[in-house]
C-alpha cells in the first residue's frame, strides 16, 4: 500500500509540471487573500468598489451582490446611504416610476435585458461580473492581467471590427475597450490611484464578490482544525488508557 501511495504522489507531481507551462500571458499579482491565512484588505476592496462604480458599472452588472453587502467592505450605513443617494440621483436604464434603490436591492443592472446590451454593443453582451473571478483559474490575476493587457495589435493580426488587442484575453481580441480611465477615482485623501493600483484593487473587489465568505471560511475552518487536534489528543489518551488495563 505504501508503494502505491508513493506512486500516486509521483504521478500527480508530473501532471503539475505539465500544467505550469501554460500561463505566460498572466501578470501574477500579490493579493492579501491568496495566502493560506490571508484575509481581504478592506482598503483595497473599498478602492476596488469605487473603481467598479466609476469604470465598470455602466456596462457590467453585479447581480449577486446587494448594496447592504458593502458593509462587509467596512462601509458604514450612512456611507451606503450616500452611495444609494448618488445612484438614485443619476439617470438610469430603469423605467421611470421604478422605486428608488434601497440597501436591500442587488446592484443595479446596467441594461434592462441582454437584448438591449447586445443592441448597444453590436452583439457583444458584457457579462455579469459577480462570479467572473471564479470562472477563471487564479481569477484575480486574470482580471488584473486583462485590464493591463491592452497592446497595439501586431502587424500580422487582422483585427475584427470593434475589437481590441489584449494579450491576456483567450483569443487575444476582446470587444471591451480599455476600461480604466486614469483619474476616474479619487481616494479619501485626495490622491488619484495609478491605473495599476486601480486594476489591482478592482481585481480584489471582484474576488470578494465571487467569494464573499472567504474570511469567515478561514476563521471557522481554523477553529474546526484546532478542535480536531484537541479531540484527537483527548481521544488518543482516553483510548490508550483504556487499553492499558
Amino acid at each position, binding site marked *: 500500500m505504501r508503494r502505491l501511495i508513493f506512486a500516486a504522489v509521483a504521478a500527480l507531481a508530473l501532471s503539475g509540471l505539465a500544467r505550469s507551462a501554460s500561463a505566460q500571458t498572466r501578470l501574477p499579482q500579490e493579493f492579501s487573500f491568496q495566502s493560506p491565512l490571508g484575509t481581504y484588505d478592506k482598503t483595497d476592496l473599498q478602492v476596488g468598489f469605487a473603481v467598479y462604480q466609476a469604470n465598470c458599472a455602466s456596462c457590467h452588472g453585479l447581480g449577486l451582490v*446587494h448594496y*447592504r453587502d458593502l458593509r462587509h467592505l467596512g462601509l458604514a450605513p450612512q456611507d451606503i446611504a450616500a452611495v444609494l443617494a448618488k445612484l438614485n440621483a443619476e439617470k438610469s436604464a430603469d423605467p421611470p416610476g421604478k422605486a428608488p434603490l*434601497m440597501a*436591500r436591492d442587488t446592484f443595479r443592472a446596467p441594461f434592462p435585458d441582454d437584448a438591449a446590451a447586445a443592441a448597444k454593443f453590436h452583439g457583444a453582451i458584457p457579462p455579469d461580473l459577480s462570479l467572473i473571478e471564479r470562472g477563471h483559474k487564479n481569477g484575480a490575476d486574470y482580471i488584473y492581467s486583462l485590464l493591463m493587457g491592452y497592446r497595439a495589435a501586431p502587424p500580422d493580426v487582422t483585427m475584427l471590427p470593434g475589437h481590441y488587442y489584449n494579450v491576456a484575453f483567450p483569443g487575444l481580441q476582446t470587444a471591451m475597450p480599455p476600461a480604466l480611465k486614469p483619474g476616474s477615482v479619487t481616494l479619501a485623501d485626495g490622491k488619484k490611484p495609478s491605473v495599476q493600483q486601480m486594476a489591482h484593487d478592482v481585481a480584489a473587489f471582484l474576488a470578494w464578490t465571487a467569494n464573499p465568505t472567504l474570511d469567515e471560511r478561514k476563521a471557522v475552518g481554523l477553529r474546526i482544525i484546532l*478542535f480536531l487536534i*484537541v*479531540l484527537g489528543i*483527548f*481521544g488518543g*489518551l*482516553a483510548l490508550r*488508557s*483504556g487499553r*492499558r*488495563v
Partner: protein
Amino acid sequence: MAGSGDMAVEHGGEDRRDFLKILFGATAAVGGAAIVWSFGSALEPGESAKDGAVFDVDLSPIEANSGISLRWRGKPVFIRHLTAGQVSAVEATPMKDLIDPVAVKDRLKPGHSQYAVVVGVCPHRGCVPVGNKPTDPRGPYDGWLCPCHGAAFDAVGRVRRGPAQQNLDIPPYRFISDTLIRLG
C-alpha cells in the same frame, strides 16, 4: 464501570482513565453541539428574507385622508393619513360603544396622531379589509370594512361591528423623523 477484570487496577489509574474518558466525551459533545447549532442556525431566514423584516417608510407622499398599503413580513400593513376631523371623531367615541375598548392615544404615536398604522388582517378569519384605496368603501365608521363577514373598523382600526372581536393589530414601528417611520 468496573468489570471483574479491573479489580487489580489501583484506584488512581482508574480515576485517571475515567477522567480522560469524560474529557474526551465532553470534547466530542462540544463538537456535536457546534454541528447541531450551525445546522440549526442555517434554518433561520436568510438575509433577503430578513430584509423585509425591518425597513423605513417615507410618509410624506401620503395625502391627508388617503392611505397606502404595503407588505411587511408577508402581511399587509395599512398606513393612513388622518384629517383633524377624523381624529376628533374617533376620540369622541365613548368607550362603552367599543367591542374591544382601547383609547385612541394608545393606538397612535404621541406627537404623530395624524398617522394610523395597522396590520391589514381582520382578526375574525384573516381576510384583508378594504378601505385603503380611494375607490374602496370604508364602512359605516370611516375606517375599514372586512369584505368577508362584514366587520367594520374605525379610522384607527378599532372594531366597531362584529363578527370580529378584536381591533386590528398594530405592527411594531417608531418615528425616525416627522415623515419617516421604521417598521419592524
